[in-house]
């Protein structure tokens, strides 16, 4: 069973629907202890980083414990950003710190000085890095993004996307993965990522 964690950051309906379409059997944990019954964890989320404050110390330690035990994890959008140390969007709210680095606001200028719209809302290409790809993520495929803050390109970066400058559109360390885009809203390319995650859990 895959635990789909609801911490009040946006609407879970579309993630739930897409995971089920990929064959997932879902558990929606009411308390951190419920994560013990899960063979994998999906942490979705959309909106403001401050919403992750709902993941209090009991949730943080439970999730950290499962990740240390080698349970596969997929963070989506805010759920991916939360893996990092924190975000400039809500400086008082700590991330999990599983990955080094900090979430920063997307630039509203290209390096050449042209204006860029923020949020980055729409379809863009993810370029997979050869070293540690996220399963199912097809290099060069288009995915749907909607975010104003993004993760830096680090050793944990599994894919990059260009919006003025490159940011990490997917991350991976071991079985812990995260995607900045919304696989549940990215058509066949997104379902391939969710399907590979669900398939890897069985």
């Amino acid at each position, binding site marked *: 069973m895959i635990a789909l964690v609801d911490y009040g950051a*946006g*609407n879970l*309906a*579309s993630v739930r*629907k*897409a995971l089920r*379409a990929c064959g997932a059997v879902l558990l929606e944990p009411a308390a951190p202890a419920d994560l013990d019954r899960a063979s994998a964890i999906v942490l979705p989320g*959309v*909106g*403001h980083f401050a919403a992750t404050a709902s993941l209090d110390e009991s949730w943080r330690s439970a999730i950290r414990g499962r990740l240390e035990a080698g349970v596969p994890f997929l963070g989506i959008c805010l759920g991916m950003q939360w893996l990092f140390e924190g975000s400039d969007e809500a400086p008082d709210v700590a991330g999990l710190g599983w990955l080094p680095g900090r979430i920063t606001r997307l630039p*509203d200028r*290209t390096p050449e000085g*042209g*204006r*860029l*719209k*923020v*949020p*980055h*809302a*729409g*379809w*863009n*290409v993810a370029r997979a890095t050869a070293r540690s790809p996220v399963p199912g993520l097809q290099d060069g495929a*288009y995915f*749907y993004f*909607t*975010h104003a803050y993004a993760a830096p390109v680090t050793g944990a970066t599994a894919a990059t*996307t*260009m*919006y*003025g400058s490159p940011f990490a559109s997917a991350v991976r360390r071991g079985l812990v993965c995260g995607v900045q885009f919304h696989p*549940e*809203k*990215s*058509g*066949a390319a*997104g*379902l391939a990522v969710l399907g590979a995650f669900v398939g890897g859990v069985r």
Partner: protein
Amino acid sequence: MTRPAPDTFARRLIACLDVRAGRVVKGVHFEGLRDAGDPAALAARYDAEGIDELVVLDVTATAEDRLALARTVSAVAANVFIPLAVGGGVRSVDDAARVIDAGADKVGINTAALGDPSLISRIASRFGSQAVVVAIDAKRDGDRLTVCSHAGRTPTPWDAVAWAREAQARGAGEILLTSIDADGTRRGFDCPLTAVVSGAVGIPVIASGGAGAPSHFVDVFSAGRADAALAASIFHDETCSVRAIKAALRTHGLPVRL
């Protein structure tokens, strides 16, 4: 100056389904509505053809029809895995919650936001700015770009640029800008209108009204500086296909999701 976003960021094509009592309808300015099919079936077809996003617009006349909207949204959402916005008759945070619970990712608000602009920030603080599309119906009146409410029938004191900026300041994630003058003409989008609004805000602007040929989309993404473009009847009629429009955009160096 807003320059086109670099590299791979795709210009978005959006199909609008005008829905009444569970059926897609079409007609110029909501008069002489004709049946254009089942919303879920049309949504699935456009998805297969490569549409980037869907809008379900409730053009309902009665309260009974409005109750059918949630069922329609659920049916559309069940079959597609691309962004879905729902508009028409969203007057409160509770209305927004209902369509979002039914499967919408974004809600479009128009007349209700003009009546009470705090609705924009209230929906944004509950669901996030990415979920709030402020729809602006603008009409040329000499040099003025007058915002109209009530499906374009009632002029307001707002200028389109000022209202778009106000909507952004209150937390809108996107602007859906319809040219009342161009709507239904199929003679092309109002590119000057789109360009002036798009250049005035930092959030994406979706151009709507006037689409009749693939070249119109090329124009609105280049001269009109639109971030996305929406059409309804040309897709229902198969006047031009999603693929044909995307091929034209690509030929002109505009990135698209293929």
